[in-house]
């Protein structure tokens, strides 16, 4: 008998099957994930969760019988029946029980099929068709991003890179070209010479000379010559690096209620999850502002509170400053997302607009503005509500003029996802939607 311990074998053997299953049920899983994400907190987004999909698309049909006209049951546990007893049809079966049973079974199959998605699966499905738009500037960074790739053969190199096959090919062609005598021919001649010696034929001398010549030639033309050596050649090539920086701007002034801040935070956290997941080389800059603006770290950005007035232009100034200092627009793809309740010092509006239109937008790939409002404001997405905020009005004109600028409103938690998706949908789907 053998005992084999399989416990240390690589687990999740059925991973590939699971992938196939998810792919199969992709549309339904996607829909279910959207639904599920509505009632999930952002924090939960990172944890695995159960979803359920209708089992329609994952049905495995086989030929099955319906009940038929007659059924024979053999049951254990008779208590007081005798032959010929008539039993009332149990309730719930009754009329058309035959078909009923089958339909019942069928229904059971159509029941929602529930299973658990891991966090990665959930996020990758959730963020599947989102993308940073216009990731256009690709830049060659000298520092690290150089790759090696095969590029033919060379006559010099290290022994490790010796291309044996190619080397022997050259050697062979050289030997053929120079008519190097083969070992077989030499042996042949030697035999004939021996024969001639034995018979003391007159050919001995000629044969000896021939053999001598052959041997010399063989010695002179070596089997493998340094000239035959070929090495695999590698060449360095620059790998294009896509660099992007994302500016997150948020109003943290007193006019922002807790609810609004919560919305904004959720939006940015979603953005954060999305960016860190989707792009390996994305830097994120957090700028918060009241009437003054400052760059802060992530923790401060999301957690701490401030008081003061509101000057949006201050944040834009700060952003410009950071761009000038660290992110050369020629090298970096620049994105910005701004969240605000729409309040702004009215005297600041012209300046804000000026800044955005003439200085920031030309540098940016994309600028998204999300206006958060109280929970009882019914609208979200495009639809402007009655009291339009001053910032909204200021920006509205920009949106018309400039493709790079997009704005949305959001008033409820559950809308965050759809607004977020609208903003970062792949361009192709976006144009399709527009047309």
């Amino acid at each position, binding site marked *: 008998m053998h005992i084999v311990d399989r416990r240390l074998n690589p687990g999740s053997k059925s991973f590939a099957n*699971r992938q196939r299953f998810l792919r199969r049920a992709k549309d339904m899983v996607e829909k279910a994930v959207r639904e599920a994400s509505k009632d999930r907190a952002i924090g939960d987004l990172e944890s695995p969760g159960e979803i359920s999909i209708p089992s329609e698309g994952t049905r495995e049909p086989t030929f099955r019988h319906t009940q038929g006209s007659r059924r024979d049951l*053999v049951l254990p546990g008779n208590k007081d029946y005798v032959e010929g007893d008539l039993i009332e049809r149990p309730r719930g079966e009754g009329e058309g029980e035959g078909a009923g049973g089958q339909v019942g079974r069928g229904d059971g199959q159509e029941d929602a099929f529930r299973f658990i998605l891991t966090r990665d699966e959930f996020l990758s499905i959730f963020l599947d068709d989102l993308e940073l738009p216009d990731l256009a500037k690709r830049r060659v960074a000298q520092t690290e991003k150089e790759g090696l790739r095969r590029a033919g053969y060379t006559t010099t190199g290290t022994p490790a890179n010796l291309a044996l096959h190619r080397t022997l090919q050259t050697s062979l062609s050289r030997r053929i070209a120079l008519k190097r005598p083969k070992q077989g021919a030499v042996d042949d001649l030697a035999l004939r010479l021996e024969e001639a010696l034995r018979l003391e034929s007159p050919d001995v001398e000629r044969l000896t000379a021939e053999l001598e010549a052959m041997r010399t030639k063989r010695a002179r033309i070596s089997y493998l010559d340094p000239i035959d050596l070929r090495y695999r050649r590698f060449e360095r090539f620059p790998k294009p690096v896509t660099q992007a920086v994302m500016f997150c701007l948020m109003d943290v002034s007193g006019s922002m209620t807790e609810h609004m801040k919560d919305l904004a935070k959720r939006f940015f956290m979603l953005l954060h999850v999305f960016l860190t997941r989707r792009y390996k080389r994305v830097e994120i800059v957090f700028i918060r502002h009241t009437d003054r603006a400052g760059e802060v770290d992530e923790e401060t950005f999301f957690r701490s509170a401030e008081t003061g007035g509101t000057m949006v232009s201050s944040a834009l100034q700060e952003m410009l400053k950071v761009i000038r200092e660290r992110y050369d627009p020629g090298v970096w793809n620049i994105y910005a997302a701004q969240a605000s309740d729409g309040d702004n010092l009215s005297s600041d509006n012209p300046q804000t607009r000026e800044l955005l239109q003439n200085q920031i937008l030309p540098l940016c790939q994309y600028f998204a503005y999300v206006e958060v409002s109280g929970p009882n404001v019914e609208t979200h997405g495009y639809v402007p509500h009655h009291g339009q905020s001053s910032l909204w009005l200021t920006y509205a004109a920009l949106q018309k003029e400039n493709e790079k600028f997009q704005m949305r409103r959001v008033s409820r938690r559950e809308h965050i996802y759809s607004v977020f998706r609208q903003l970062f949908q792949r361009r192709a789907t976006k144009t399709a939607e527009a047309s």
Partner: protein
Amino acid sequence: MRGELLYEGKDWDFGTIQRIHDAVADIAHKELGLDTFPNQIEIITAEQMLDAYASTGMPLFYKHWSFGKRFAQHEGIYRMGLQGLAYEIVINADPCISYIMEENSATMQTLVIAHAAFGHNHFFKHNYQFRQWTDPEGILDYLSFAKAYISNCEERYGHAEVERLLDAAHALMPQGIDRYPRKRPLNLHMEEKREQDRKEERERVYDDLWRTVPGRARGSKQMAGDKRRALLGLPQENILYFLEKAAPRLKPWQREVLRIVRLIAQYFYPQQQTKVMNEGCATYCHYRLLGRLHETGQIGDGSFLEFLTSHTNATRQPFYDSPSYSGINPYALGFDMMRDIERIVREPTEEDRYWFPEIAGTGDEMEVLRNVWANYRDDSFIAQFLSPRLIRNWRLFHVVDDREQPHLEVSAIHNERGYRDLRRSLAAQYEVGGYAPDIQIVDVDLAGNRKLVLHHRVRDGKMLELTNASMVLGHLANLWGYEVLLQEIDSGTEQVLKEHMVRPEAG
């Protein structure tokens, strides 16, 4: 004789497993006369057990989304704690592979080893169904070939293409089974001998006079039809086989994939037909083996009680009116019947002598049981060996549900008049023909539009369930490449009850 305890407490290690195996093997081979394949015992985790569940219990299997679905299902159920996992999975291979879970206590491992590595193992090795249809030596190699082949196909022809094909093949899997051995092609030697015999026969009966007898008019239409069907091997109930051999539009790799699915279906076919016997055999064996281990003092009283708890749970049969009733438990029925045979062989009553004259009182129950295990399958086993005594113990009764009648009728109970009826009707429930629809390919319109014609013989008004049937037929039409017509024909009146016509999807 009092042996030493094999283990104490719950914990075990490989040494324990080895000792348990050897002790069980000793009793199994020497006292019970079991004859088994060599054993290979593999220890796995719960997750691996789930993995194995998902792919029909086999250690290596090709990839398909349906296994992923099954895994997700089982996992959900398991995580919610609705259902424990099976303690073991055993594979009909040579050597016989039993998976045991690391969570099991030492007693459970003993139970599992006795049950799977000896009970099932003996059954696999001897039952005629398994001997006829399975190749325990080759199965693992074949599965690994199948896995590699299908993953190659996926690389070469694309996942979508292979998935479509496998979906179709899986839908027809129950129709991919030979129920009777196919005529084997003769080998050359036999062929030669037959030819020789023919020649001799011709010479012996040669009479030149026959030449002058005017020949019959040949080539009637009927003959042509018969000949065509004979050439195609029709009627054919093994749809996958027919497609593999005769579907005009399949590519060679697609035929090979159909073949793989078909052969695997065939491999599992005996298991469907011997559920009661197989589990009965394994349960009876573990019961005897553990009982003996306890008698000889190799397992302690506590362990024995632990074993009895599991054993009685597994062989519990709730009555029909109990909320937990969900059909007849094959473990319970199998085990009780085996025990009953033991009783009949050892201490028969007058009744037993009348019902089972050939085994009653012969004294060696293992010999009788070994014979039973080798030569029966569920339906024949029940038809032969369900005793009146057991019928009374189980208080079996037979209810007829005729949809034309307003009431259900009790047609037999556990009394003198009812025994034969009950035995027959219970056996009928285990007949293959009872649960699998009888569908055959009967003809192909080769001259015309290559329409494939199938018949479903309807018994007792059991028509095909429509949604499923049309999906399966869609798959079938795609494989065949042309139209498919399925006629449902009443087997009594030969009337066509319903016709399904399906065209292949374009492309």
